[in-house]
């Protein structure tokens, strides 16, 4: 599996996710600086967590307008895989690869804690090895994870079964408990929780590991 991790000024989970990928695939992903204008040929593009451009204006807004994002759009439109984690999810909504928007948490506070996620869509390369209704332990750490979509948009994405993960106990006010969302075809996934922080669970493999591993097996 060839993987690219996009690095924006202010990204801060880029190293963490790259190491998670390396742990699963045995291969270092390529790190792509946001000013990159040449095409990169990979299977999966990851938009990592962090505070690209300090989350100024709106989280993900400025990152979404980086030159590299044109390639990410092309890649996604050609059916390539894109995973946006936390700040990466915000970038994906800002650039329109996913519908809706991520607003400040209902409590207006940053929240860092473990959460339980229910898998609600398995027909994606990211979740193909999970079963519907299965629970995953993957932590969140964000200030703006309160997913919102207008009514008709929301019913459309529910009808299309685009919701991939829902919170068991909604930490941020997210509409319909949405924690992770895909596009219709399932090749683009945005999620607020950080799978790269769930690589181990005690002495065994964590659910983040399982997610990345699923991805690798699907592609192989």
């Amino acid at each position: 599996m060839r993987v690219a991790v996009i690095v924006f000024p202010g990204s801060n989970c880029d190293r963490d996710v790259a190491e998670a990928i390396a742990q699963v695939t045995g291969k270092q992903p390529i790190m792509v600086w946001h000013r990159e204008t040449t095409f990169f040929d990979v299977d999966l593009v990851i938009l990592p967590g962090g505070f690209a451009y300090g989350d100024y204006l709106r989280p993900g807004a400025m990152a979404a307008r980086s030159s590299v994002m044109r390639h990410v759009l092309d890649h996604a439109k050609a059916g390539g895989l894109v995973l946006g984690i936390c700040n990466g999810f915000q970038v994906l909504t800002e650039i329109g690869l996913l519908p809706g928007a991520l607003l400040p948490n209902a409590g207006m506070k940053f929240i860092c804690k473990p959460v339980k996620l229910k898998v609600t869509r398995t027909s994606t390369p990211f979740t193909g090895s999970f079963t519907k209704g299965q629970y995953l332990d993957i932590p969140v750490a964000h200030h703006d994870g309160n997913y919102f979509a207008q009514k008709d948009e929301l019913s459309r994405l529910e009808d299309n079964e685009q919701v991939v993960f829902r919170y068991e106990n909604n930490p941020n006010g997210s509409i319909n408990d949405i924690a992770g969302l895909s596009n219709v075809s399932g090749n683009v996934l945005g999620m607020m929780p950080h799978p790269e922080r769930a690589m181990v669970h005690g002495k065994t493999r964590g659910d983040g590991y399982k997610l990345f591993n699923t991805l690798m097996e699907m592609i192989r």
Partner: protein
Amino acid sequence: MSDLSTPTPQQIAEHGLSDEEYESLCEQLGREPNLNELGICSVMWSEHCSYKSSRIHLAKFPTTGKRVICGPGENAGIIDIGDGDAVVFKMESHNHPSFIEPYQGAATGVGGIMRDVFTMGARPIALLNALRFGEPDNPKTRSLVAGVVAGIGGYGNCVGVPTVGGEMNFDPGYNGNILVNAMCVGLARADSIFYSAAKGVGNTILYVGARTGRDGIHGATMASAEFDDDTEEKRPRVQVGDPFTEKRLIEACLELMATGNIIAIQDMGAAGLTSSSIEMADKGGVGIEIDLDMVPQREDNMTAYEMMLSESQERMLIILKPGTETQSRQIFTKWELDVDVIGRTTDTGRLVLNHKGETVCNLPIAPLSDLAPKYDRPWKKQEPAPELNAEDLPQRDPVDALCRLMVCPDMASKRWVWEQYDRHVMNDTLADSASSCDGAIVRIHGTDKAVAISSDCTPRYVQADAYRGGKQAVAESWRNLIASGAKPIAITNCLNFGNPEKPEIMGQFVQAVEGMAKACDKLSFPVVSGNVSLYNETNGKAIPPTPTVGGVGIVKALDHVIGFGGAEVGDLLYLVGETSGWLGSSLYAREIEGLSGHMPPPVKLSVEQNNGKFVKKAIQQSLVRAVHDLSDGGLACAAADMALASDVGMVLETHDEMPNHAWLFGEDQARYLLAVPSHKLNQLQRLAYKQHVPFVFAGEVVGDDIKIGAARIKVADLRKKWEGWLVKYMENIHGNAGE
């Protein structure tokens, strides 16, 4: 004002220099300074920059050791943790700014301490904070808590350095003067550490980072002045932090460090360009000439005075090797940071500033640094505090008392705080505020080693007896590291006191320092960095003396990491150390009996060491399932912590000869509570016997209740109360919470 004019007496007074100081300055210069020079001298001679009241006492700290690479004097202390790795750390106060503007004050405190660490070549890997607020009922407290916590999180989370621990107390003594002490720990390679000495003549001085604005002018003198009701006037001097710039600055500086282009590097902290340039010149034994027209400026028409005294954040000064300018600039340009050559080193031993075609300052370096005033201020020994006799206190329901202690503001769960901190970014956090471990544990990236970190101080002890209190703060830090499975190595500290010109405050300071020094010496736990914050007073009333200790230890193998959350039903509870039932200045005395100011517990350092050695062995030989040091609230509170963390019930023993309150809540030092699996008991007992360690049966892990004699409470009910206090308090938020 004309910056080149000779200052008026009023201007001299406004700059906080005493008449004698001004005279001595003129004598050293051989003339009167102009206004620019006065501004520069006054910040350099301020308490904050010159440590004029504290220097002679700080010299009492032991600062060397087998593992010490760099002790106090540089931006941060450095210890060797083996395999070519080094850990760089320091703690610093941002008390005054945080009281004025809690969000920005705390945020810039975090930013400032990180710069002290990465300027030495280390990548910051952990942040902690020690916070002291006024009493919860004070109308300002709630919004100060909200603002400070949001500011700490807002900055650290954005930069992407985990905030892994800290402490938070409430006391009316901090009503008008809160304490915000931030600590940063960084990781470097021992063979690529960067210092601030500007060696060599004719080398380029590079300015990098944010532009200079008019913010924070006089911050250093403000930090050295008491508060009064006119504090409002000083408000516009607060600085706004920009964590996004800090993040890029870290990456760019580390990238530049890897090139080998740097001769010296220094962050611009208090007194900005002034103190950074003077310190670099002084350490390198050179002069410095700066062309102020080249300084990146945020605002129009800035004067020399403003540029030199600005405390705009996120700026660094770098001395480059000749010929590396272009490559160095490119790195900062890539990170979209301002960068410019602003001057060069000279052989004159002077600080020369040119602005708009004029020389606006020409001062010899030495009077500003080495020859700055140094005082042996008069100090008064504290009267010995009275002893508190446990027998004189009434008998009470022990479980009821336990509940009241666990729910008091100092003991109640701080979840509301630490859930706002990203504790896991960088993926190396093994134990944080949520983890029920006496120290925070952060793995050395890519290895099977870790550092343990703890921040500690018990101000009520220091208040009653500064010498004992100073000793105790160091001992508790050491004990916390032991109890988390680490070998304690060294400390940093932040000494928060009132006005040193008062002999009784100076007395607190001197005795606390002597107590700390004694403990550091005996425990082989040297001081490698620190910070002093004096004049923490409002309307003449000083804060409780608060010498915060930030301890760092090494965990050699990750399976040595232990906490107090692992106790299982069937385990036996054993108490390590001797219990006399010492209640003077205890949490019990304060919360239950409303008594304070009695003699705090003695700190016997050889006992501390011996007991610690035993506990370390017990951990390394896997003889225990959970370990907790005993501190506030003694045995009963440590047991309750363990019960809550392990989600188990406990039956606690009572004592035949001692009243319950003494046995359960006494705060004798050098003690630990262990949860021992029954099949390991024999082995552990033998070890205790061999090491001459008091090892006393204290109870059993059983059921769902905490039970003492006939009294009991469900652990689940205790949890609700313990978790509930701060949330309920903060949900009532009124007033301005910052951003």
